[in-house]
């Protein structure tokens, strides 16, 4: 019984991390992916902060929806409540990081408040509600999505530092070549379709 749940959880995790990758096939958080650009260090610290925020917002929003909003008949107010939870969570995570690791806080800088408006966070929480996922799969979605985000934003930051040194055609410099690279990565991910199902 426990074993079968564990296997289902792992499969869902792999599927949400790689096959339905958050950036390449579900397109959440493309803005931040284009905005962070080619600085590997800030990309990774931003990715780690996003992992924290997505995990805890999914953890908090699940009971809020199922045990507060639905019994009160306010299910249509979900988006408004979620965005408030996420905004306050980002504040709390910011305070926490500031107290325990001022160096990390400094390196995150402007990216920290921007996590509130990162589509990936609201996207995961809303998807959990819309698809009516159970608690286990909600957490698999949150963990898988955020790890996929961390992985991709790291890989892309590395690729873009290399791209800057190559002689790309002038019109493709910057964002266009980054998008074409993303297209090739998305094609690679298409090859994995069907593993988790």
């Amino acid at each position, binding site marked *: 019984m426990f074993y079968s749940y564990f296997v289902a959880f792992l499969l869902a995790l792999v599927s949400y991390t790689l096959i339905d990758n958050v950036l*390449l*096939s*579900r*397109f*959440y*958080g*493309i*803005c931040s992916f*284009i905005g962070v650009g080619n600085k590997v260090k800030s990309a990774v610290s931003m990715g780690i902060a996003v992992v924290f925020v997505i995990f805890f917002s999914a953890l908090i929003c699940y009971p809020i929806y199922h045990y507060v909003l639905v019994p009160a008949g306010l299910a*249509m*107010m979900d*988006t*408004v409540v979620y*965005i*408030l939870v996420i*905004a306050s969570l980002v504040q709390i995570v910011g305070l926490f990081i500031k107290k325990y690791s001022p160096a990390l806080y400094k390196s995150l800088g402007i990216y920290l*408040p921007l996590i*509130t*408006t*990162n*589509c990936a*966070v*609201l*996207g995961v929480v*809303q*998807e959990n509600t*819309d698809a009516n996922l159970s608690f286990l799969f909600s957490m698999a979605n949150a963990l898988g999505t955020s790890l996929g985000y961390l992985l991709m934003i790291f890989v892309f930051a590395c690729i873009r530092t290399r791209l800057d040194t190559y002689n790309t*055609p*002038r*019109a*493709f*410099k*910057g*964002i*266009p*070549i*980054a*998008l*074409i690279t*993303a*297209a*090739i990565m*998305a*094609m690679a991910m*298409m090859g994995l379709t069907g593993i988790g199902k």
Partner: protein
Amino acid sequence: MDQLKRSQHHDSFVTGIIKENPLFVAVLGTCPALAITTSFEAAFGMGLLFTFVLVCSNVLISALRKLIPEEVETPAYIVVIATFVTVVKMLCQAYIPNLYTSLGVFLSLLVVNCIVLGRAEAFASKNGVFDSFLDGLGNGIGYTLALVVISLFREIIGTGKLTFGNIFTFLQRDGRAVSLSVFKGEGWDYSIPLFAQPAGGFIVFGLIMAVLAAIHNSKKDKEAAAKRAAAFAAAQKAAEEKAAMPAASKTEGGAR
């Protein structure tokens, strides 16, 4: 004075459409631009709903701009935007249910759309209600235009035809969707299904950005060339004058 005011209204409406297009120039709001542009109708519907949300939130935030304290600006804006998104969601679910299902979670994600929040912070919080209304309308039209362009490429190349009536059911004929064949017909099919996949979205968006960059670059090159030519002509003229001057003084000296 009146003229000045009118030109300001004109500016706040027009800049968002092409010159400062939110998607192609400012590169904001890219998530829906890649996700829901697989069909023309979904993209157009998204553009309409987006414009509605942007206009409403711009007007309300501009009307409240003197009441909202600076410290809680962003949370207040987010709540205003989230309220309008909820309204739009419920209206869309009730009257265009096909659009609601095909947009899915991206309708809720309008709450965290960088363009809506960006216009609220950059424009509506500093300008009057009417200007904010026009700014919202202009940016909404610009974004709709950009979405439609991407979706036309993706739908026509990806499925080989352009279909009307799946989402906006009033376009149906005899209860069926109407489709316009381009790359696909009886017994022949030159469509490339990849373009309907996520990878195709990146390719189309990247190529459009590259074409726009190329146009921008050639314009800049022409301007630079014109400037260089003008500078060269001026330098030549100066040199000629300089060459003429000593000659004149020399003849003067010879006469003495």
